């Protein structure tokens, strides 16, 4: 047994000591905790940690196997994302106790605050006193036992799991109903109570999911095969896209969900060109050797930065929307090209980790697949706030893709139409976000860059928060970004174009005198090295390709990603379909595409008169349309519209 006095040792140092002692199998006594945050986060050894006093936010968060005992009270997010192990709290717990747990025992002898057990997947959360409102909000599994009163709206939008209430049920939440409990369940609870020496002889009422909101009433219809050019419906008013849209709605009686990118014409990078004439790029011999493209991303606060051979990354795309083989292929391609890959929502597979040399691990509001072990083997951590194709929404994964295996990784019931929560349980403002970012850093010893993915909406404000909250970089996603599934109207009409996003971001930073102080990775419908160079000129530090890499890897752009029957084996979880996808071959196809991007970036940078991509700047650009000129404040040069396209020059 060792002792740590938090009146003497700062939490950051204490957490390092706790992990060191844990590795040695040594139990730890903590005195004078005085409600400090992040105590014990990141501990993954089966030792006992006793806190003599109160703990602050995220006590025992992001841990596995350890046993925590807290004498008095705890702040928000007790046992956040715990895998196994236990926490016993002698006093009260604040909001979101047991948030996102995956299997631990959480015992609170006093009362617990609102939204306890939000997005929990497994394990037991027990409250000896009364619960505050919305206990079991959005829970996917596991059980909550409340010996006192339930609080209002208990079980709000739960998708799975059980809630047992000893006292009064104040009101049931949406999609929750009373259930029948079997003797064996109650026996199991009594055994649990005995184990933690809690005497309770009363009865229990049980609350379960009502099942009204887990599925769309009618499933998504297969679309006709309309080529994207026709689908984007540029010329005709009642074009095939509009007709199809009406036909499908007449069948399903609701908004549509589809995959792929937006098809509405919007101001984009193609409405911008280079100020100087660029022709015959092919005549530049070996431009890659002439231009410095090496880029470090995310080292601002002392973490190990991502080391990119060019200012390019892979955009976040989930294992779930995409098959395991596809994520593996993209990962391999990223390694071949010397850039970074990103897990997107839904966890990290071994195949993906093995394939990608540099991998960013993304955390979403549902905490699907999020866990301390994969955090520790990531090269970067990322908080997803939203994405360009559907800002303000969480991920969507239709039932067909929510297979047993996938559901297990995510910790959710199989076969539901998954609409991931759009909000994070513990991020309701810039102040909470600050504490959350610190939790992630504490848990991983401040070694990894922490980034934020922002879908373009109120970017001017959001980027300021990102800067103030100390992120290492921002992944900024415009409206032209694609998605595996999203409401069709949302994809077309919500969000702001990619070129507006970067301008708003830079303007926001300029307002607080922080231009250049946080790196921006721009994405959202970038198609080639030309788009990449224009983005860098506008002020991005790097760019990311999502859909382009999928197309490079065999996507036929049928826009049926949401259905789950992808004929190429890309956007599917059906093993029969996935068989068609050959990751080694597609990895090389994707890699060749990335090399073409590299060549274009180098050739254009050279042609613009520079030997380093960092020299690219706004003066290199002009706008071809009044809209693009208004958005970017670049000189308007309609006379250059007739100039041969750059793609032809290459």
């Amino acid at each position, binding site marked *: 047994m060792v002792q740590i006095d938090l009146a003497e040792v700062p939490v950051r140092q204490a957490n390092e000591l706790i992990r060191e002692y844990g590795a040695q199998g040594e139990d730890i006594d903590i005195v004078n905790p005085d409600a400090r945050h992040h105590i014990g986060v990141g501990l993954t050894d089966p030792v006992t940690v006793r806190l003599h*006093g109160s703990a602050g936010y995220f006590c025992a968060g992001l841990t596995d196997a350890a046993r925590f005992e807290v004498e008095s009270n705890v702040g928000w997010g007790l046992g956040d994302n715990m895998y196994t192990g236990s926490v016993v709290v002698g006093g009260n717990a604040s909001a979101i106790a047991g948030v996102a747990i995956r299997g631990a025992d959480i015992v609170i002898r006093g009362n617990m605050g609102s939204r306890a057990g939000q997005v929990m997947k497994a394990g037991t959360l027990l409250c000896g006193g009364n619960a505050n*409102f919305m206990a079991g909000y959005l829970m996917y599994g596991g059980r909550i036992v409340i010996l006192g009163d339930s609080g209002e709206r208990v079980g709000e939008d739960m998708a799975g799991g059980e809630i047992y209430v000893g006292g009064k049920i104040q009101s049931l939440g949406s999609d929750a109903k009373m259930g029948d409990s079997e003797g064996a369940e109650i026996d199991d609870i009594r055994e649990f109570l005995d184990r933690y020496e809690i005497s309770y002889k009363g009865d229990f009422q049980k609350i379960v999911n009502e099942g009204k909101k887990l599925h769309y009433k009618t499933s998504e219809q297969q679309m006709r095969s309309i080529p994207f050019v026709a689908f984007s419906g540029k010329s005709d008013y009642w074009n095939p896209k509009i007709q199809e849209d009406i036909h499908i709605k007449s069948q399903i009686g609701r908004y549509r969900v589809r995959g792929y990118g937006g098809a509405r014409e919007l101001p984009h990078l193609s409405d911008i060109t280079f100020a100087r004439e660029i022709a015959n790029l092919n005549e530049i011999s070996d431009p890659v050797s002439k231009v410095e493209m090496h880029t470090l991303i995310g080292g601002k606060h002392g973490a190990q930065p991502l080391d990119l051979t060019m200012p390019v990354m892979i955009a976040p795309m989930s294992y779930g929307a995409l098959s395991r083989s596809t994520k593996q292929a993209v990962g391999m391609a990223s390694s071949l090209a010397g850039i970074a890959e990103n897990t997107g929502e839904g966890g990290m597979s071994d195949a993906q980790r093995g394939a990608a040399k540099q991998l960013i691990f993304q955390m979403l509001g549902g905490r699907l697949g999020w866990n301390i072990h994969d955090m520790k083997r990531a090269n970067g951590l990322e908080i997803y706030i939203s994405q360009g194709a559907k800002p303000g929404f969480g991920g969507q994964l239709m039932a067909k893709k929510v297979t047993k295996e996938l559901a297990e990784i995510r910790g959710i019931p199989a076969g539901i139409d998954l609409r991931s929560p759009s909000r994070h349980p513990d991020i309701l403002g810039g*102040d909470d976000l600050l504490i959350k970012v610190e939790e992630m850093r504490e848990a991983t010893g401040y070694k990894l860059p922490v980034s934020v993915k922002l879908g373009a909406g109120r970017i001017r404000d959001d980027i300021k928060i990102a800067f103030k909250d100390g992120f290492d970089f921002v992944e900024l996603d415009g409206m032209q970004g694609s998605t595996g599934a999203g409401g069709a109207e949302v994809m077309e009409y919500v969000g702001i174009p990619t070129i507006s996003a970067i301008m708003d971001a830079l303007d926001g930073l300029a307002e607080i005198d922080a231009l250049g102080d946080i790196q921006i990775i721009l994405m959202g419908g970038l198609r080639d090295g030309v788009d990449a160079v224009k983005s860098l000129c506008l002020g991005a530090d790097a760019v990311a390709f999502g859909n382009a890499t999928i197309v490079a890897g065999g996507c036929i752009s049928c826009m049926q990603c949401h259905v789950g029957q992808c004929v190429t084996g890309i956007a599917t979880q059906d093993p029969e379909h996935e068989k068609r996808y050959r990751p080694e071959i597609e990895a090389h196809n994707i890699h060749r595409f990335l090399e073409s991007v590299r060549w274009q970036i180098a050739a254009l940078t050279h042609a613009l008169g520079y030997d380093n991509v960092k020299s690219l700047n706004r003066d290199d650009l002009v706008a071809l349309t009044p809209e693009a000129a208004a958005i970017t404040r670049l000189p308007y040069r309609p006379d250059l519209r007739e100039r041969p396209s750059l793609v032809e020059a290459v």
Partner: protein
Amino acid sequence: MCGIAGIMFKNGRTDHETGVALIDMLDGCQHRGPDSTGFALYGEEHRNELKLRFLVGEGAEANESEALIKTALEAHDAEIVEDKRVGNTYQAVVTFDGDLRSFAYAMEHAAPDAKVISIGQSLDIVKDVGSAHDVDDRFNVHKFKGSHGLGHVRLATESDVRPESAHPFWATGFSDVAIVHNGQITNYWKMRRRLEQRDFEFRTDNDSELVAVYLADKMAHGAPLREALKSSIEDLDGTFSFLASTKDEIGYAKDNLAAKPMVMYENDDLIVIASEEVSLNRLFPGQALNTKEPPPGSYDTWSKST
């Protein structure tokens, strides 16, 4: 984007170390807002006098503002009992017995570069950029003795880091009313327009100022602080936890979603409320406190005994 703190010593005496307590509490939650810090302090009541504090800045501009303020005070029959410059502020104690709201607005317009921070018989607000200790260094907050007070640390995410956008906010036009707020009022413009139609003036676009004016308006119509807090939960949309204080009371209100944290501790001698328990523990180091978390959509008030 902030941390809040409030303390009241119940016995009504004004010799408590209120300044030190608030500095400690705010230092405990400075991580919630490192950009600016402020204090609303309630000391001994000056029965027939008003304490005024203006933000005037430094140098020649400040001298000019001070001169203009003095002229305006004279024009409104407010006689200066004592005055001084502290940091970037000008402070005056005056005798005045006219209509406070019009006087306050006149003071606000007295000098183009000056801003009224607070007016009250016992209230004094100090706020500036920097940490609790930075602000203490400039304004000697630790020397302040009183019966109760509020504190605030701010993370400036939507506007510049400027002293005038720091909290607490004085309810412009209403003596001795101050608030500190953590959260966001989403029907800000609607509520502000309503109040503006009734000739209220707003000094900033900060939604926290709205909370202060809203409460003061209710109280001016005769509602006790308790009633004003109750109606605020119905009338204000958004996510908020705020603390409000008057000459004799301190109170809180918390939105219906409980989206912003708040925790409190009460014993026979005092009531302390803060965003996080870590602030409360600063006053009782090493002790496990029996704290309480107010439920969503709740409010409460405490009065000092007089």
